[in-house]
């Protein structure tokens, strides 16, 4: 800046800059509020924590992006070389104080986010202790209920190429549609019969890979009634995209009624879009590239439907 410039110009510049920063702060705050709308409905006790963090980072990110963009637009508007001006600019090679400041600011910022996040992490604590299990015994394959080794409130999740099966131990119920009572903590025991899968319910903001050869305990508490999608989130082969299931969160009474009704249903083919599409595919003269055939549909009391409207 020109040292001979009258101080009134400096004052105007400071005022203008201050106004612009205030405007950016307001915009960032607004974006932070908006961020909640970009996410699915929050349906678990984890969701508000995750959404709060995301909103906070959106606000900070908006401010940083806005500031960088401001500088860029400023130089593009006011620092363009005049036509036919071949000369160089004033050679400023650096400024140690500035460099220290702009190292310190991002450092403090990201460390603050990291500490905030670690707190959220520990409050979430979704990942239970893991244990290695032995490859399934043939007994398990025959449609029995080996999950009786689990505590009663646990739901056993079995991921396959390509279906999801949910077993309610103690109640001798099995389903390809997950039913959960609202506001009750629930523990899942995640197992895979073949490859990696991802247990992902966007409305719950939670995701855990399902790893063959490991049983992973996974806790969550649904907080909102509704019908949500469970999606396979770890690529699992040909019908990966179709490997979805519905999660129904309902009141205690409705859940009890569902359990009762489900127990009375006979075992039948569970939901597996892959099995159906595979059969159609085999009819074609040129069915595409090689694929692993889908596992037979699990035998369940409640198959559910893939086409009901869901909240998220």
């Amino acid at each position, binding site marked *: 800046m020109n040292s001979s410039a009258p101080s009134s110009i400096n004052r105007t510049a400071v005022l203008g800059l201050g106004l612009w920063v205030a405007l950016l702060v307001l915009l960032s705050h607004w974006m932070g509020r908006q961020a909640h709308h970009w996410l699915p409905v929050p349906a678990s006790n984890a969701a508000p924590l995750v959404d709060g963090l995301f909103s906070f980072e959106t606000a900070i990110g908006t401010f*940083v992006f806005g500031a*960088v963009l401001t500088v860029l637009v400023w130089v593009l508007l006011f620092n363009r070389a005049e036509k036919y001006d071949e000369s160089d600019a004033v050679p*400023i090679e650096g400024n140690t104080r500035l460099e220290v400041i702009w190292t310190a600011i*991002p450092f403090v910022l990201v460390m603050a986010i990291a500490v905030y996040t670690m707190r959220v992490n520990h409050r979430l604590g979704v990942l239970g202790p893991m244990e290695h299990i032995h490859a399934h015994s043939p007994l398990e394959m025959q449609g029995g209920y080996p999950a009786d080794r689990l505590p009663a409130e646990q739901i056993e999740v079995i991921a396959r190429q390509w279906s999801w099966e949910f077993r309610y131990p103690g109640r001798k119920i099995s389903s390809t549609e997950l039913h959960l009572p609202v506001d009750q903590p629930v523990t899942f025991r995640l197992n895979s019969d073949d490859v990696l899968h991802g247990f992902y319910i966007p409305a719950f903001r939670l995701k855990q890979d399902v790893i063959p050869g490991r049983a992973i305990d996974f806790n969550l508490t649904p907080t909102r009634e509704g019908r949500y999608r469970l*999606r396979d989130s*770890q690529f699992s082969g040909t019908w*990966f*995209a179709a490997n979805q299931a519905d999660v129904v969160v309902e009141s205690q009474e409705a859940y009890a009624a569902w359990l009762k009704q489900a127990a009375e249903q006979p075992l039948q083919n569970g939901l597996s879009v892959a099995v159906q599409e595979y059969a159609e595919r085999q009819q074609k003269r040129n069915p595409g590239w*090689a694929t692993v055939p889908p596992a037979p549909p699990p035998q369940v009391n409640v198959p559910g439907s893939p086409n009901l409207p869901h909240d998220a």
Partner: protein
Amino acid sequence: MTIATFPPEPPPPASWTRYLGFSTDAKVIGIQYIVTAFFFFLIGGLLAMVIRGELITPAADLVDRSVYNGIYTMHGTIMLFLFIFPVLNGLNNLLTPTMIGAPDMAFPRLNTAAFWLVPVFGLLLIGSFFVPGGPATAGWWSYPPVSIQNPLGHLINGESMWILAVALSGVSSIMGAVNFVTTILRMRAPGMTLFRMPVFCWTALAAQSLQLIGLPALTGGAVMLLMDLSFGTSFYRPEGGGDPVLYQHFFWFYSHPAVYVIILPVFGIFSELFPVYSRKPLFGYVYVSVASFIIVGLGLVVWVHHMFPSGVAQWMRDLFMATTMLIAVPTGVKVFAWLGTLWGGKLRLTTPMLFCIGGLVNFVFAGITGVMLATVPIDIHVSNTYFVVGHFHYVIYGAAVMGIFAAIYHWFPKFTGRMPYEGLGKLHCLLTFVGANLNFLPMHPLGLMGMPRRVSSYDPEFAFWNVIASLGAFLLGVSVIPFLLNMISSWIRGPRATYNPWNAIGLEWLLPSPPPEDNFGEEVPTVISRPYGYGTGEPLVENQSEIEKRLQLQEVLA
């Protein structure tokens, strides 16, 4: 120095056929790399068009699901291993020796071998489209057990060819890295200390060191994967006592740093070009140079952030989140340094400058979503969704590829002796910037809503953003047309380039355009100051005005 050779013998007009053979000239190899890379870029891009064509509607209705999986796998693999790494190695070949005043690379024949492996594994990979069962379909991560399922049971199958190609690519990259590191450390011009070296060379040195450290892990991991796939071992097979998550460690130990191998040279390009086109020295040269190595150090200890939902312990989540966050610091320093360079400059909005500015905007956006991804709870929600795909493409296409285009336009006159056309270049830049943002921005809301990546079909609520993304992708496809038109027509009949058309400072701009085969030959100038002396009036090398006069005279005589 004498001018006894004056007037210099005009070099014999070199035949274009030298680009088809086993040349040991780094400048020929550089162009071979770049042209080969863009050939595969077109194939990879075509696959991207199929992907976006499939995803323009919710149902899996364009191609069979197995075909979709093969196509997205090959898109990623081709773009990374056959486009972006080779194109960067091409730039390294062109720029490293000329920028440091070396006559060639340290090991010219190793250089030739490293390049010729590229078409070999390229053919292997493309050939896998035609074997029974089709190509690999397990994604470019190729996570077991899905990658070792081998439905047909053949010994030669898409997956085994994929693994071999990736391993060969690793061998080629290691050969290249040995060469670049040695050349930069041992063959600099007299007077060019490390802290007088252009930032591009700093970033190349950093990136190639990462290759040397990281690639053995990937190659080892890939060999074990091949053993599991073809020879019945159980490194990753749970039923044999193996651990599928182990592979993920091997894979990401290299493949996360691989992103820095890609982006660091692009930081180098930004650091070279912003000073030229704002006529100011690079702000904080020393810090920017050193920051590359801070990124290398941190980049080696962040890989588990790709595995937060894979079943890793809480302490690992916390630790790797913190290291990942820290990378924002040296990276932020670079961004601020570029802004400091632009500030108060005399900006010239040429095609390369516009590409750099567009790339910088995209990169800052990608950095912000990167910090979001580093925070574990958010990552757990959006990992393996389109949010990650969007972030990644902002880094790789939005920032890296735009930086590479900037470099190509900027150094095109130096190595071809012809000027590219500005109008076509600016059109290319506009289409790229708009197309990339239209293509990749919608992926973020999709991911936040919970749309997993790698899906061949999706629920109808995701349709809106997918349609926009697909339109953006098609625009990106179109953006390649002015680029190719520009490159081909200007190379054949563009206006002749002077030795320094951008009035830039650097050893490469003290060579004729195109430079002779051994660059400076016996008369390597002695470097006497730091790079980027714009506006300081200090010469870069001894007898600079004489060298420039000679070059001007040579051009007048030609």
